């Protein structure tokens, strides 16, 4: 069930080296920026590969980690912020990514993809089998 928290703008605070870092969800436009810079992210998010978690991101697209952290701390595309994020320790990166993922995706990427699938948004127009197709009219009889 959707809650008010799911539609509200949210932020979390992650403490890194005794400093509080404000963390936000990554917006659609920032995801587009990340897709452009790291095309491998598209496959990761399609649900056809292993589910996207902070750990799989680190393993399968390590180059995208710093950019994702920069985006999740309000500095998408900022090379200085990406450089700072890249110098963080692995544990610190995972802490930040975990908070960013929680704010970005509803209970991980899998449920988000599943939800899109349930809404018929992952099907092409030709093979749609969801609600929209069920509501279409049958073809007229030729007789």
């Amino acid at each position: 069930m959707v809650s008010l928290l799911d539609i509200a703008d949210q932020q979390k605070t992650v403490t890194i080296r005794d400093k509080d870092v404000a963390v936000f969800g990554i917006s659609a436009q920032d995801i587009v920026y990340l897709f452009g810079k790291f095309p491998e992210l598209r496959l990761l998010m399609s649900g056809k590969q292993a589910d996207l978690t902070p750990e799989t991101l680190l393993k399968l697209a390590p180059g995208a980690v710093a950019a994702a952290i920069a985006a999740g701390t309000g500095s998408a595309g900022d090379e200085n912020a990406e450089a700072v994020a890249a110098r963080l320790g692995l544990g610190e990166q995972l802490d930040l990514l975990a908070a960013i993922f929680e704010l970005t995706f509803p209970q991980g990427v899998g449920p988000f993809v599943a939800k899109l699938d349930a809404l018929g948004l992952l099907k092409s127009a030709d093979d749609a089998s969801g609600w929209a197709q069920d509501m279409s009219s049958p073809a007229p009889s030729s007789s």
Partner: protein
Amino acid sequence: MGSGYELARAVEQLIHSGHARIDVWKMTPRQMAAWMQLAMRRKFGEQVQLLSLMRAARSDDRHFQTFLRKLRDESQ
């Protein structure tokens, strides 16, 4: 098909539902999924309402007039 397509479909769906384009691009996937789920629930509610009206329209005249009068009374 990569997730860029799914994201584009979600953006289109939300704009079609009446969200401002600039607002949609600032949404996280979590927010987009939540808004779409709410829209879907509203849509299903509207379908239930439509089916109820269709069923009422097919009933005999006396029942239909009763139904219509009830709706009119409730709308005052």
